[in-house]
């Protein structure tokens, strides 16, 4: 929820008849009314493989990156910033309105529409600004909104990226084996009778030989010199067999070296919507897996000429699935099973746990659309708030499976965990709440799914068995709002009856989440301000101290109606009880994550007691004298830029306009003690007395840029001074 920016739509208290409960929403939702106008994590771009390390990137962040690179800072870039942000809003509206497509295409359409609407000629300022910005668009991919399809789209995208990486690795290995095996066969063939035959020789020469060569004779000569060391027949057979199995493998699409295999089957499909189908497919494909794995092993031995029939034949004869190693399995694709709670039959969900438990290479998505469940028991479904929030927690008990739970709204923030889950070499479970609950009307799935996390109904977490041996390293609960608190608190701004702005910190609890749901609204009733009494207590406070004395009917959450009027929504004892259960589950998760661990808390309390006792003892002793205040540091005066003394030969001293020296070596060749170069290789007069006035004057005359000023002669006894002074005059 933090991703969306604040929109100015305050709830207000006005005189009103008790609202119809069915249209109520939690008061904190007031800011997220027109989601299409707010910049948030959706639309989300499913970034194409190979474009940086990201799987997912929100449109808003992409736009920010582009603007940082393309728009000039300050007022100069303002026009471009405004235009590109408008473009972003337009794409967001289009995607929310159901338009699908790749980012580049959506951009093009939106930009064209904007230019058209502006009435500006093509290549005008708007057009060229949008075009300049688009050049910085360095990634592309499908753009999706937050809706009932999102969990499957995102997980499938991440799974595909992983399978593509696997396919590349697979092809690299298999192709190299194919090439090397075929080279062995080729070089053997070159020694054959056939390869030395007249026909083969003639075809090697081309058509234009017209009988001038007797190929039969040539063949006869060559045949006599033909090497005899052909490959043993059983080795040729074995290589041919392995080659065929590698070329015609049905797991991934063909690589370059196996494109031409005529018997090549269509690659297997690895995406399923039922566990039974996936398991059946797994079983049916097992012979192919074994055949292929055997061929790989044979090929690897053969290219190194290490296959020893007496040793290896019996091993391969009894090779079965129990011989498959994890590494061999990992070379092949893993299956993706997309299940949807409430749509998939519940027996299938149970089977998913079995499949995960036996360690098959599968990725399971369980999409949850309804968290609370019906208000009356409908076995086997959980009811009254118990919903399906425990699916992922249960899977953690399997120990060897990677478990991921997140709400749709937080998928981008959980992106790294998503990738880790895909890369995990073992079974993985992704449990994602879509926010598209049929019984909740008028709340966007993005907002509702974020609310589920806020209300601790569906916390985000990962359990990664590869991260370490202990729970602290495996279990991560950190991507949750205000992790240490029972319920996250937020600021609510509203107007009171007199139109004065008020501000209140309120907690967002299970009860807030529950009042969105039409089925649960019969357990609440809205009270306008006239009916507010001091006996009413916010549910979160009520839960914090479930004081027996408090009448349970007095527990309320703040709600708003479609006109943004504020009510207290008094909730029934059944909701309060469900909230308590939810809080309880959250606390246990916290303990798992090491927050407020009950064992640690007990130790800590004992520790604190001991320390306080020690401190009391120390207070009795005198304190050491305080060190004197350090004197304030003297502020360093900025160095005053020294105005260079007005140069000139006023005092008759010879000088060079050093900054204009072109390093031509002329003067330094006249007298290298008198004329020297500084650290920038520009000449200055190092020692006017190191030479004669004549040298100074000659250097001045030789200097191509006339920057040497000889000044007055220093030695009055130097011969021909009069003439030299005259020659020096133009350089004064």
């Amino acid at each position, binding site marked *: 929820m933090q991703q969306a920016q604040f929109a100015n739509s305050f709830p207000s208290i006005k005189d009103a008849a008790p609202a119809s409960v069915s249209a109520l929403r939690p008061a904190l939702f007031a800011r997220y009314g027109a989601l299409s106008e707010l910049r948030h994590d959706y639309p989300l771009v499913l970034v194409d493989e190979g474009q940086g390390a990201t799987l997912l990137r929100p449109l808003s962040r992409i736009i920010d990156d582009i603007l940082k690179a393309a728009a000039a800072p300050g007022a100069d870039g303002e026009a471009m910033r405004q235009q590109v942000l408008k473009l972003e809003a337009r794409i967001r509206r289009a995607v929310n309105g159901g338009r699908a497509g790749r980012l580049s295409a959506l951009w093009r359409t939106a930009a064209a529409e904007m230019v058209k609407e502006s009435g500006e000629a093509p290549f005008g300022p708007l057009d060229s600004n949008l075009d300049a910005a688009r050049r910085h668009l360095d990634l592309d991919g499908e753009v999706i909104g937050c809706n009932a399809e999102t969990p499957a789209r995102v997980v499938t995208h991440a799974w595909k990226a992983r399978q593509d990486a696997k396919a590349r690795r697979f092809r690299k290995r298999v192709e190299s084996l194919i090439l090397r095996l075929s080279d062995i066969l080729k070089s053997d063939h070159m020694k054959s009778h056939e390869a030395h035959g007249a026909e083969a020789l003639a075809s090697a020469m081309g058509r234009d030989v017209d009988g001038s060569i007797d190929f039969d004779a040539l063949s006869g000569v060559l045949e006599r010199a033909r090497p005899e060391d052909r490959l043993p027949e059983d080795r040729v057979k074995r290589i041919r067999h392995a080659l065929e199995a590698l070329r015609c493998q049905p797991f991934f699409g063909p690589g370059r070296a196996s494109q031409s295999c005529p018997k090549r089957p269509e690659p297997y499909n690895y995406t399923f919507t039922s566990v039974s189908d996936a398991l059946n497919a797994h079983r049916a494909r097992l012979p192919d897996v074994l055949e292929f794995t055997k061929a790989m092993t044979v090929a690897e031995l053969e290219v190194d000429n290490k296959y020893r029939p007496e040793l290896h034949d019996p091993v391969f004869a009894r090779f079965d699935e129990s011989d498959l190693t994890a590494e061999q399995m990992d070379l092949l694709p893993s299956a993706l099973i997309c299940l949807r709670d409430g749509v998939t039959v519940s027996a299938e969900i149970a089977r998913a746990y079995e499949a995960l438990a036996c360690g098959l290479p599968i990725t399971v998505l369980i999409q949850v659309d309804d968290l609370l469940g019906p208000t009356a028991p409908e076995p086997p479904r959980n009811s009254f708030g118990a919903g399906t929030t425990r699916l992922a927690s249960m899977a953690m008990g399997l120990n060897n499976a990677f478990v991921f739970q997140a709400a749709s709204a937080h998928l981008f923030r959980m992106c790294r965990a998503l990738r880790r889950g895909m890369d995990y070499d073992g079974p993985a479970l992704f449990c994602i709440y879509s926010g598209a609950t049929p019984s909740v009307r008028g709340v966007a799935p993005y907002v509702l799914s974020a609310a589920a996390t806020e209300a601790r109904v569906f916390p985000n977490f990962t359990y990664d068995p590869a991260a370490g041996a202990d729970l602290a390293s495996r279990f991560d609960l950190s991507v949750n709002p205000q992790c240490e608190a029972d319920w996250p608190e937020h600021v609510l701004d509203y107007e009171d009856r007199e139109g004065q702005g008020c501000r209140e910190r309120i907690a967002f609890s299970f009860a807030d989440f529950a009042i969105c749901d039409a089925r649960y609204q019969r357990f609440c009733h809205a009270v306008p301000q006239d009916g507010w009494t001091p006996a009413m207590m916010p549910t979160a406070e009520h839960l914090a101290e479930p004081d027996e004395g408090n009448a349970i009917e007095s527990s309320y959450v703040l709600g708003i109606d479609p006109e943004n009027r504020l009510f207290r929504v008094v909730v029934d004892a059944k909701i309060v009880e469900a909230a308590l259960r939810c809080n309880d589950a959250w606390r246990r998760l916290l303990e798992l994550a090491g927050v407020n661990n009950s064992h640690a808390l007990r130790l800590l309390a004992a520790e604190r007691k001991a320390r306080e006792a020690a401190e009391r003892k120390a207070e009795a002793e005198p304190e050491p004298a305080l060190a004197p205040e350090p004197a304030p540091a003297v502020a360093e005066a900025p160095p005053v830029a020294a105005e260079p003394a007005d140069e000139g030969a006023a005092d008759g001293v010879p000088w060079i306009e050093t900054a*204009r020296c072109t390093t031509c070596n002329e003067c330094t060749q006249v007298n290298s003690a008198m004329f020297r170069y500084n650290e920038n290789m520009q000449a200055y007069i190092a020692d006017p007395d190191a030479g004669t006035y004549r040298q100074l004057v000659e250097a001045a005359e030789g200097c191509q840029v006339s920057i040497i000023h000889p000044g007055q002669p220093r030695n009055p006894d130097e011969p021909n001074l009069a003439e030299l002074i005259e020659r020096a005059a133009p350089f004064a």
Partner: protein
Amino acid sequence: MTASMSQCLMQMVQTDYAISDYQSEIAPRWCSGCGDTAILTAMQRLCRDEQLPPEKTVSVSGIGCASRLPHYMNAYGFHGIHGRALPIAEGIKIRRPDLHVFVTMGDGDCCSIGAAHWLHAIRYNMNMTVLLHDNNVYGLTKKQASPTSPHGMKSNTTPFGATLNPLNPLTVTLGVSNVSFVAQAVDWIPDLLYQILRQAYHHKGLSFIRILQRCPNFMEHRFDDWVRDPSKMRILTHGDGLRLAPDLSRVYKNQETHDPLNMERALALAALEGEIPVGILYRNPNVPCYDELRAGERPNTPALVETVLNEEFDKVGIWPDGAAAQVGE
């Protein structure tokens, strides 16, 4: 003992290059007063101030007096063939993007025999700094007219005076698609030459500097009017552009603030007659660079070259029956 040890180590780690580290053992053989010396010095100054490791720096040239420059730089150098400095430099840059590439050309080198390469190098906009030493003449071959020789100039090939008006390397460069940096410097204001070179070095893309260079040997008085009369030099300044030291500012008072993104004004300045503009005429850091667009995924290290070669060799390595046993055992 310990102290001096650690000092030694420090010195080994903190290389501190001085100008002399970029001077080769060969003393420049240019005629005395030749403007090429100022350009060489500016370049060595830049290397020193940017602390460019000599082994990461390469200067590439064609043929001519100017093109002797790589000999005088203690860094990698490629004294190429006439007119071909740019394609060689592009080849270096695309395979070794880690190197700092400088290109030195004379006006004959760049604007006549190498003209085609010049245009396409501008268009490719690869990351490098290009210096055109423009002395308006073929110096090395002893005075033939070049494309930039002034109309009427008498030379060995134009004994009755050059027939055509000269080509203006600045307007030509500014007219090429993807141009991203064009500046003009003169060798006789070395400080500005240095500053322009430095800005060029920091520019992402191909930076083209035309340097008016005096050839006292064959074009003795060609630039005298401007060398002697600083008011005929127009210094272009802008926010983060050239800074004139106070003593230079007193000499060169003719200054103009010019926005280097303003192409129209850049073209007008480039075509200026009578005065010589000095400074950055055009600069656009957002033009795409061919070397970035086509950058390889992996840097081409010797280790990588070896691995790739070995992989290729392994593909054709055939192990006849028994051979591996002999090799391996």
